């Protein structure tokens, strides 16, 4: 029972960052109709920026975190402006191929810049874990969870409360009508990609100090983000949030009770099962997705 509680707590904490990844990807897909294969690269970009700031430049941990997210936002905006801007209106396969190309190029640039050796990042938190009755959790992970929750709440607020969020929702519902009503679609797309990328970079910057940082770390992150987004229904933000937690629980329980080797396989099994049973995902909004 204690073991189950501990697994549950681990899953809850991991789920926060998974949800961040999923929300970013689902925003980009929902609004731009782009299957973003560079999502995982933004995740590893965030982690590497964290490494560069904390370990190489000696910056403060929290300043580095903010900086990594901001740089992620800029990189996302740059990718949108350079690669996707001219492909607006192209079919989904075309943009997908471009994003695959960008993903390969980015990942190998990373490999060149940082070498393939895994890096670890120091954190300023006490090494002794926080013990809560039968379970314990490290301070670092607790911090990750709190920041992830804050960012999720921030993303919801941005989408539901601001003018930009309103423009994003309008574009999601009907791009052409939104454009006719004066929504600047190009701006919305750039902002969406930048925000989604920033969330992925935040997830990487948060998890980098928990695990280690290596160039191909983004691949699994991408695939897991796809799993989360499909689970929740492509384009659904609440679905991605809940999907992130569901995937984390499945992985944690699968690793704990079945076999740790198949931990990363749970997500893919989940995708296949979901698509067999309910192809639109668990929480799909009105279907507008082909």
């Amino acid at each position, binding site marked *: 029972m204690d073991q189950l509680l501990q697994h549950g707590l681990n899953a809850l904490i991991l789920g926060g960052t998974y949800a961040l990844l999923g929300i970013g990807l689902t925003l980009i*897909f929902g609004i731009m109709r782009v*299957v973003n294969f560079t999502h995982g690269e933004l995740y590893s970009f965030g982690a590497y920026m964290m490494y560069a700031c904390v370990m190489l430049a000696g910056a403060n941990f929290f300043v580095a975190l903010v900086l990594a997210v901001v740089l992620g936002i800029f990189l996302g905006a740059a990718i949108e402006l350079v*690669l996707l801007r*001219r492909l607006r209106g192209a079919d*989904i*396969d*075309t943009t*997908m*191929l*471009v994003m*695959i*190309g*960008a*993903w*390969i*190029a*980015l*990942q*190998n*640039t990373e*490999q*060149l810049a940082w070498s393939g050796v895994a890096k670890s990042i120091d954190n300023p938190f006490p090494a002794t874990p926080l013990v809560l009755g039968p379970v314990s959790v490290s301070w670092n992970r607790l911090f990750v969870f709190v920041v992830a929750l804050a960012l999720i709440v921030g993303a919801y607020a941005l989408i539901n409360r601001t003018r930009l969020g309103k423009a994003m929702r309008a574009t999601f519902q009907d791009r052409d009508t939104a454009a006719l009503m004066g929504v600047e679609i190009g701006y919305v797309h750039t902002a969406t990609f930048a925000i989604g990328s920033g969330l992925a970079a935040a997830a990487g910057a948060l998890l980098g100090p928990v695990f280690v940082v290596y160039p191909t770390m983004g*691949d699994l992150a991408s*695939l897991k983000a*796809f*799993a989360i987004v*499909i689970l929740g229904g*492509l384009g659904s933000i609440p679905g991605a949030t809940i999907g992130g937690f569901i995937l984390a629980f499945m992985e944690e329980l699968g690793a704990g009770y079945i*076999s740790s*080797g*198949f931990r*990363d*396989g749970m*997500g*893919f*099994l989940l*995708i*296949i099962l979901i*698509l*067999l049973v309910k*192809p639109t995902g668990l929480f799909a909004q009105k279907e507008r*997705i*082909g």
Partner: protein
Amino acid sequence: MKLWATIAWLAFLFSVPLWMGDLYVLHILIITGIFIIAAMSLNLLLGYTGQLSLGHVAFFGIGAYTSSLMSLGFEVHLLPNWLVKLEPKPVWLGMLTGIALAGACGWVIGKVSFKVRGAYFVIVSVSFAEVVRLVALNWVELTQGPMALNNIPVLRLGVPGWFEFAFLRKPANYYLVLVAAILSYVLIRRLVSSRAGRAMIALRENEPLATSVGVDVTRYLVLATMIAAAMAGAAGALYAHYVRIVDPDVFLFIYTVTMVIMVVAGGKGTLAGPIVGGLIFGLLPEVLRAAAIKPEVQWVVYGVLMILVVYFLPEGIVPAVRNWWQGRARREAAEPPAGRPAAEAAR
């Protein structure tokens, strides 16, 4: 004319081992040929039915593992007290089993996943490949996991007691791959010009319309997936018995991406596309390596090339060259070479 060109091409391809003394070049050609077979099979799905399968390497790997395991024999506990044992079988039987099993997997994937299209199909196929890779990595009793399957026997063909030929040396393997590639090419060519092929193209162009005139969508998509999977499995089996070592890395996503680049750059939905793309992207790494360029840079070049191809040659190289050629021919036919009357008048 066309017949003669074909014969000349075949004669050239068959003569390569006779004058090519460099065994390393031959090795590159063999590996490239195997990837061209895989790319042709992917082209059947991506180019003719319009479905992007990003898990194609799964079928390649299934063919490779099945064929290797059949020819090596294995002992595996399916349940703690249920031991399944297989004596080593001849390689040709292993290869056929590999092809059949890959085809069967393709049939299952086609059946279950063609409920979904577009982005969903892409992600299902990626997930399938990843699950298969994890099985190969973690089911150590069967697959040796990361320790890899070693000492895979080479293909031996012959009549028992009369003669036997082992495909041990590179020229022999070159001919084996060449014949397999020609067979695959002919098969795809016949398939796409048949009734089934026309149905597939109709689906790619306009699925609701095709359905409305009575094309059985699922049936033809499943057929295409099954044939493509079996062909990729054949490529995998050839690979396993040529390289003679198979590890879970054959399932790496990057190989699927290589196949996709070959098809897209060469021209999806054309017969020659995967061959042209396969030759370019099969030989390019060697050229880059000869220029002492690091593999990471090579992959960056791949990625950038892929983006450039999508921007500037969205149809691929083969259709672009064909259009340019036909356009030139048409221009020449339309306006007789300018300036000649004037020149004649002057003379």
